[in-house]
């Protein structure tokens, strides 16, 4: 069709026919043909198209896409000639924003409109604006893995639930988002979007062990490197990278350099970051030791519990209080605080005490004595025990000051064993003492007292009651099994999903719960946000944290090796053993280049150290962008008013149009 000439009188003006496909006319519809000359502006072409379609709708988001060249014709004042467009060009008249299905860091699916015409960097920024995530530069999009996911699609798999739909959301024009009813205003349009906000800002509690087991887990460095081959290029548009409408993409924190996490503004960001961290830990993408896993489990348990009790609007209300509200509540707190201090003064003379008959066991060498009944008095931070209640006026058998001691729960619910193991430091060493309580209630009271005393606080402390409740509720977890003997799995439901599959296998729930309980005592007082932040920090302090792996071939080397890219350094890792061979820091880096022809990245460090490698597992542009991205992120200033220097980002990561 292109280049056809008709016998009409227009022949002389060098006009030709341009064919434009319009999706709105239906898939089978013939492309529109327009008669144009080379000096027609793109804007003019689009006007002609709209005229021809004769469909009344808002066409303002539409633009022309040149299929062969994978190019958006966005400069409406450019002529066809200037674009070098000729009659053989296949054009599409299509919206610049299309819906995509995004899998968020918390593995939930959401539909949003993303810009298909702008570079991914900006498209992500747009998505993050909708989601209310600050510092979008830290996130990016990945293609979803293809087959693997489908194979495992039996049983409950995350990401298959109904999508949350945010595609209809209209962002306010102003950059400053006014919170409304405790959430960014655009979420409060409908109950559906409100639910969506909850999904974004409150971590999901419906997780089961199967979910974790079903997820693909990388088992070695090469597998860990796989995910990094799927990153989309930030400097090109989605359309240019062949992403189709409604395609599934992953949104993830890509650069492990989290700038200025602020609980006040970053509700969604912190939640999603926590989720990503949680999954990294559960799926062992970031490896942790047993002890660390227990801390992570305890934090997850704690976060879950708080998230459950949080009513849909409450967590939001907490965050987004406007000034008056916060001032009022501050005032309230102050007033309450005032009365409570006076209460405290009254209480000074009467610090609560615990007095009970408990069985005490002191393990000593060469003795087989078991527990012995004593009258035990817990006063301030000390425990004194007497032979009997009658002798309580005299000298105690022993007095233990619990300040600085270690408190370890030793509980077995089914065995009705409620013991508190105390490791009390003394000049001679640690003395071990076991206190055995009769029931949960007693245990919880004494345990809470011991924990506070270990920190040097008495039971007059305001946290005492909540500590007691915490302990009781944790015990409930374990008690779940006798109540539902029909489901042997029910007990597993309690804590198993809090740890990675490896530890699920290693420990019986009976063993696991006490250990998590032990770790939990250190985090039980944290608020929801604090707990999430703690989780993120603990994750960040893992040695493996923040390293993105690539399989590469170093210049002059014959075997594949792993290159780890972190926020401050490059790490050369032995592929087989996993040992670090060499570390280079960005601060010593002079320059880096990419030879696009042979796809080799060459880096020069101080003291004339040169490193060159080609990427095996991922495109060399991805490696290049990762390094450039970290360097870009390190240029961010603490000056919050400053926007990002987007140009610099492209310069550092783009690799020009060599692709």
């Amino acid at each position, binding site marked *: 069709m292109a280049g056809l000439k008709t016998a009409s009188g227009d022949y002389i003006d060098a006009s030709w026919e341009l064919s434009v496909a319009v999706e709105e006319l239906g898939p089978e519809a013939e492309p529109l043909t327009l008669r144009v000359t080379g000096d027609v502006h793109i804007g003019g072409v689009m006007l002609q198209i709209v005229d021809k379609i004769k469909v009344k709708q808002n066409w303002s988001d539409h633009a022309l896409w040149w299929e062969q060249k994978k190019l958006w014709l966005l400069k409406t004042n450019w002529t066809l000639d200037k674009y070098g467009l000729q009659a053989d060009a296949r054009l599409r008249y299509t919206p610049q924003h299309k819906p995509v299905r995004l899998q968020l860091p918390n593995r939930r699916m959401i539909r949003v409109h993303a810009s298909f015409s702008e570079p991914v960097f900006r498209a992500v920024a747009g998505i993050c604006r909708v989601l209310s995530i600050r510092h979008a530069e830290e996130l990016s999009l990945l293609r979803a893995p293809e087959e693997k996911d489908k194979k495992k699609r039996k049983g409950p798999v995350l990401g298959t639930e109904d999508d949350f739909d945010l595609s209809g959301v209209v962002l306010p024009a102003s950059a400053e988002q006014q919170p409304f009813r405790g959430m960014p205003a655009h979420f409060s349009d409908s109950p559906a979007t409100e639910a969506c906000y909850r999904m974004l800002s409150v971590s999901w509690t419906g997780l089961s062990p199967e979910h974790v087991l079903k997820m693909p887990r990388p088992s070695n460095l090469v597998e860990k490197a796989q995910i990094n081959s799927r990153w989309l290029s930030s400097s090109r548009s989605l359309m240019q990278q062949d992403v189709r409408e409604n395609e599934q993409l992953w949104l993830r924190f890509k650069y492990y350099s989290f700038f200025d996490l602020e609980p006040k503004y970053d509700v969604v960001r912190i939640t999603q970051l926590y989720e990503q961290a949680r999954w990294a830990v559960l799926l062992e993408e970031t490896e942790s*030791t*047993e002890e660390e896993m227990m801390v992570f489990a305890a934090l997850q348990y704690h976060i879950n519990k708080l998230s459950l009790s949080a009513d849909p609007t409450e967590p939001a209300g907490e965050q987004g209080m406007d000034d008056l509200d916060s001032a009022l509540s501050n005032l309230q707190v102050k007033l309450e605080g005032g009365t409570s201090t006076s209460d405290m003064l009254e209480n000074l003379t009467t610090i609560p005490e615990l007095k009970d008959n408990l069985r005490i066991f002191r393990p000593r060498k060469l003795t087989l004595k078991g527990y012995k009944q004593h009258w035990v008095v817990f006063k301030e931070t000390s425990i004194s025990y007497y032979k009997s209640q009658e002798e309580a006026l005299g000298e105690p058998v022993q007095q233990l000051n619990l300040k600085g001691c270690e408190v370890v729960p030793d509980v077995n619910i089914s065995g009705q064993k409620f013991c508190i193991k105390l490791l009390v430091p*003394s*000049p001679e*060493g640690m003395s071990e003492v076991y206190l055995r309580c009769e029931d949960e209630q007693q245990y919880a009271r004494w345990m809470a007292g011991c924990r506070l005393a270990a920190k040097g606080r008495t039971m007059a402390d305001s946290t005492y009651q909540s500590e007691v409740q915490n302990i009781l509720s944790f015990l409930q977890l374990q008690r779940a099994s006798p109540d539902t003997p029909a489901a042997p799995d029910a007990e597993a439901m309690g804590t198993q999903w809090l740890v990675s599959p490896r530890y699920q296998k290693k420990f019986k729930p009976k063993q696991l719960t006490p250990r998590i309980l032990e770790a939990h005592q250190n985090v039980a007082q944290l608020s929801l946000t604090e707990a999430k932040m703690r989780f993120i920090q603990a994750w*960040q302090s893992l040695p493996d944290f923040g390293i993105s792996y690539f399989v590469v071939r170093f210049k002059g080397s014959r075997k594949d090796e792993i290159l780890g890219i972190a926020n401050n350094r490059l790490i050369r890792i032995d592929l087989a053993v996993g040992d670090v061979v060499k570390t280079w820091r960005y*601060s010593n880096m002079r320059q880096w280049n990419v030879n696009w022809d042979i796809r080799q990245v060459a880096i020069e460090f101080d003291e004339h150290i040169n490193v060159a490698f080609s990427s095996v597992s991922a495109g060399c542009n991805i490696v290049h962008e990762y390094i450039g991205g970290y360097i870009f992120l390190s240029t961010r200033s603490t000056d919050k008013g400053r926007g990002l220097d987007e140009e610099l980002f492209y310069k550092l990561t783009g690799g020009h149009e060599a692709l």
Partner: protein
Amino acid sequence: MEQLSDEELDHGAEEDSDKEDQDLDKMFGQWLGELDKLTQSLDTDKPMEPVKKSPLRQETNIANFSYRFSMYNLNEALNQGETVDLDALMADLCSIEQELSSIGSQSANSATMKRLATETKVAQKPPAGRLSSKHSSIKGSSSSSGRVTKPSNANFSLEDITAQLEKASLSMDEAAQQSVMEDAKPVVTAQHRRTASAGTVSDAEVRSISNSSRSSITSAASSMDSLDIDKMTRPQELDLTQQGQPITEHIVSMGHPIKQSKRHIDFTEEEAELTPHSYLDRETSLLLRNIAGKPSHLLTKEEQAAKLKAEKIRVALEKIKEAQVKKLVIRVHMSDDSSKTMMVDERQTVRQVLDNLMDKSHCGYSLDWSLVETISELQMERIFEDHENLVENLLNWTRDSQNKLIFVERIEKYALFKNPQNYLLGKKETSEMADRNKEVLLEECFCGSSVTVPEIEGVLWLKDDGKKSWKKRYFLLRASGIYYVPKGKAKVSRDLVCFLQLDHVNVYYGQDYRNKYKAPTDYCLVLKHPQIQKKSQYIKYLCCDDVRTLHQWINGIRIAKYGKQLYVNYQEALKRTESAYDWTSLSSSSIKSGSSSSSLPESQSNHSNQSDSGVSDTQPTGHVRSQSIVSSIFSEAWKRGTQLEESSKVSNAKPSTAKVCVPSMPYTGQN
């Protein structure tokens, strides 16, 4: 003033009995310390208005109405046959008593107070006398040994000194006046550095009879130097002096038999002390009304005195408020084998105590000053971190503990921040790094949302429980604790076994474990709960192959344990050293209370001139200037003198003490 002198008495007594060489610099240090205190008590314009003082300030520690009497290290002192600590504590108690009565009698009852003061003095006399006799015997022995060399070695500076002497003589006037009061206190108690210098004088004198008079000049010069500096740094004090003491007389007294001058000063001291009080109380209220709002240099002597009085009352009142705070009397050992007794309150951090000690001992400000806890029974030691609470740590000691607290310079303390590349990068070898990169590295490690614990791993020796045998293990440090790789397993996170978590333990340097426990090397570190003081299975001993590994591990553990706090401590310490950099600024920091905080000698003299002018207008500016020059020359000469003296001491000389600034403690309030 009474209680100050009383306390000083005991402080000095203790010093003396330590039988350490009584250097002029100590005396100088003492004076500066006192000056600190006096200027502090002067610096408020409105005396009646309660001003909140930081607990760091000295006055807050002078006396306490309620404090915990501590036995720590006291036994040790007793074992050595020293009763001095008890004296010191006695003095504390006395001062408390006095303060109490001064509050009680603030209406007008000065008579009681005076009597009380005298009583205290009387009570203190006997030990003083005893000590002075003790001292004279030392004098005899020491003169035969090291000191002989001194005059001749110090000669090269004498020309300068004599040249400057004349110039300075006029301004000496003031200095002498001043010295009378300050000076007299030590002397009246027949102890202290002052006596030490006096001892030198008399020593020299013996010789000067036989051949030259130079040596006596040396002594006089160095004394004058001290006087001079004293004067220079304490301009505001001048108006407090009640009687003029002609300079000539004072200098002459140097050349006279020492007993005489002592007696003389003794006498003036009594006067100086008693006169203010004799009429202060009568007029206090009136004067105070008058002086309200007046700039300090415009006040008359009476007004100043009244102000001082009011200030003391105010301080005492603050004490009452502070009475709830527990205090601990501690003994701090210096690097020169001397020791100081001081009081710390339970809120004080190690940083505050260090600042206090640095101020008082005039040892120069350095990042490296540390409080080190040594547990002799276990042969281990630990540098307290600046943010730690000192009292809390000391309470872990047992009653009969042999543990010591040492005030000493330790480069290990902040080496981590001076050369982070050696600790944070997990490299095996030391290297250099540009300062800019060091900063980047530190920022990266400590300023992120979480602290990056350096990746330290390697083979260490672990001591078997209860045995003197050591086994090799591959250890790794993680933020969550110390791990090791079990036999036959790979070095992957999931297989690591937790050796220790760091929440409940501190890390110590082990000392000489090669002998004690047959350790493979002497580079040992120990992990234990701070409360454990005796051998126990709960103490873990690790041994490194070399000292570098040892420091890497210890610093790594510190980072894992304290995180960002360490960096904050360092920055604070840095700030502290930068603000008070060297000698000159040291004296200016003492003046600071006056308002000027400049560290330039020039502006200092200006400042002293200003504040002097109100009281003694006769003093020409030029003198103040020349004075500062003189003093600097003197101090130079004196420095050399000390160095020589130090080096000439064969047995006792320690490298650390051979420096210009000998750590010593002129801490008058509490000793």
